[in-house]
């Protein structure tokens, strides 16, 4: 049957994007290489730091933080869970994953919070940033892996880059939302007393938005963890690497062990950061 849409030749959208990425690669190659080197050494520093501490000490430290931030049962769970990870010989892989999560989440927060603040204060920034966030969040996570490999080759650096892109949106969104939700009368009061823009931000808007911002940070850390695991496909290693190897060998038991380790790390990170959010909303 005749379909008028067939008259339009296929638009080579994919080719264009290919071309654009190659063009970028050619022109900003030096920049990406420098960035890669910096990221590389940052990850190594995080990783070496975590591995330098004796596992039992680190397990105790995590349990103590969990106790302080949450309660005794979470502390107990952290201790048993992390000990189990050590026992199944996944300690090294877990620390690699943790190092990547910490770096990616820190970068997301360092970039995301200022962007969120700007988007809440400037309508123009909001109108540019929000559609980009929609794109970043709805695009399947795997799609990021392809261009970052182009720029940063295989390994942990592209994994961290993809993770930052994937995990940053909630930080920006919730920072923006938190600041916009500060009651208008309070902002007005702050202005009426002659606050500068900076005083208004630091003394009124940020403190009141903090619980919402911390919700974004918590989400960011959880998304980082999930992306770092997926990024094993581009050679990120860590726990994701262990899962990936198990899949290729159809090793059901090994796959579950690594999967469980991911769950333990996820729960410990979530409980610790969730608590920060609650204690702030109370105080």
């Amino acid at each position, binding site marked *: 049957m005749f379909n008028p849409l067939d008259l339009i030749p296929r638009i080579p959208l994919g080719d264009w994007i290919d071309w654009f990425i190659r063009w970028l690669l050619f022109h900003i190659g030096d920049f990406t290489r420098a960035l890669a080197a910096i990221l590389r050494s940052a990850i190594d520093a995080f990783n070496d730091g975590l591995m330098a501490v004796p596992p039992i000490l680190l397990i105790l430290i995590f349990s103590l933080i969990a106790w302080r931030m949450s309660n005794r049962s979470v502390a107990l769970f952290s201790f048993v869970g992390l000990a189990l990870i050590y026992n199944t010989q996944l300690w090294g892989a877990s620390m690699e994953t943790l190092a990547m999560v910490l770096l990616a989440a820190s970068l997301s927060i360092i970039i995301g919070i200022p962007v969120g603040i700007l988007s809440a204060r400037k309508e123009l920034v909001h109108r540019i940033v929000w559609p980009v966030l929609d794109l970043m969040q709805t695009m399947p996570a795997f799609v990021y892996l392809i261009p970052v490999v182009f720029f940063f080759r295989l390994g942990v650096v592209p994994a961290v880059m993809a993770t930052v892109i994937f995990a940053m949106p909630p930080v920006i969104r919730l920072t923006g939302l938190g600041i916009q939700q500060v009651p208008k009368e309070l902002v007005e009061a702050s202005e009426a007393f002659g606050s500068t823009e900076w005083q208004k931000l630091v003394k*009124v808007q940020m403190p009141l938005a903090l619980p919402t911002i911390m919700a974004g940070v918590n989400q960011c850390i959880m998304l980082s963890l999930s992306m770092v695991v997926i990024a094993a496909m581009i050679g990120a290693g860590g726990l994701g690497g262990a899962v990936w190897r198990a899949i290729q060998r159809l090793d059901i038991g090994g796959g579950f062990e690594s999967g469980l380790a991911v769950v333990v790390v996820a729960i410990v990170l979530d409980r610790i950061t969730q608590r920060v959010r609650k204690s702030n909303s109370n105080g």
Partner: protein
Amino acid sequence: MAKITVENLTKIFGNHPEKALTLMDQGVSKDEILMKTGQAVGIKDVSFEIEEGETFVVMGLSGSGKSTLIRCLNRLIEPTRGKIFVGDNEVTSMNDNELRLFRRNKQAMVFQQFALFPHRNILENTAYGLEIQNADSAEKNERAQKALELVGLKGWETRYPEELSGGMQQRVGLARALAVDPEILLMDEAFSALDPLIRREMQDELLDLQQKMNKTIVFITHDLDEALKIGDRVALMKDGEVVQIDPPELILTNPADEYVAKFVEDVDLAKVLTAEGVMIHPKEVAFPKDGPRIALRKMKDKGISSLFVVNRNRQLQGYVTAEDAAKAAERGEKELTGIIQTDSPRVSPDTTLNELFEVSASASIPIAVIDEEKKLLGIIIRGAILSALSKEAV
């Protein structure tokens, strides 16, 4: 010379005020301008002068433009046209920096919903204005402390706003404004969110404070009683225009037009002549757990012969007389429960004076005013009704 001078002030809300201004100058009405251009006229060509030390009340119904007007005075809302002077300085021509200094040093604002910062304690809230001026820390605390003492909140410094009642929160709002020692106090429906009795207390206190401080006060309200009570002069606003500016007596006796006359008449009948209008705060109440001796002492302290008894939720239980309490004390009873009488006259806040008069004729003790939940709102002593009625006759 005038402290505040407002000349032909106009505020149009919308993206294309020019069109609306042209139409407005041709005498087109507010509604028609909104229909034709989509621009809303907030205030229209308002001019007045306020003297130093004057309490100037702007009174109008919601939508009359009074909140917009007060926000134009410190440019929280940017006027579309017209000039505002404070002393010799033109506020409307200030740049950002000058405006900030003006807001810091010359004026302070009190808000309808208090607008206290929930993450700061009472002292930190009060010191906010000084803090953003980077005042020396010791001086800052001392001045904030003084302002809190002035409004009777000494001892609450380390509490947080959510721990305070509405009346106390607004005292903090007032202290925060007074702490910077402004020449001009802008009060935007500052007492409107408070219970009637607390509101009256705050009005009295503001009048007291004003006697000591002699600030220039611009006070916005929708309550005519309030306007007449605290204003040296009252400006009545309607649809963004000032209809009449006069001292309270003239507003009452010599309304400029039918709108004002109607206003004055309505409010008089509806508000002043009800139980709510003449009730006073009970000097003292007793609780069922109080012993008869405590009740006796409370009565003696206040020079009264009976005491209303309320439970923890301020719900009225009844009353005790001094006579019964004395007998119970002799018998060695530990609680009031046995001698509470429940036949006290009770009325709702909207009972009219005529009805009240009948009730009070047969009552030997004050009349209790209670709400639907039986909470004790206030009491009415017989003299209050008589004096209210005699005022009405005049």
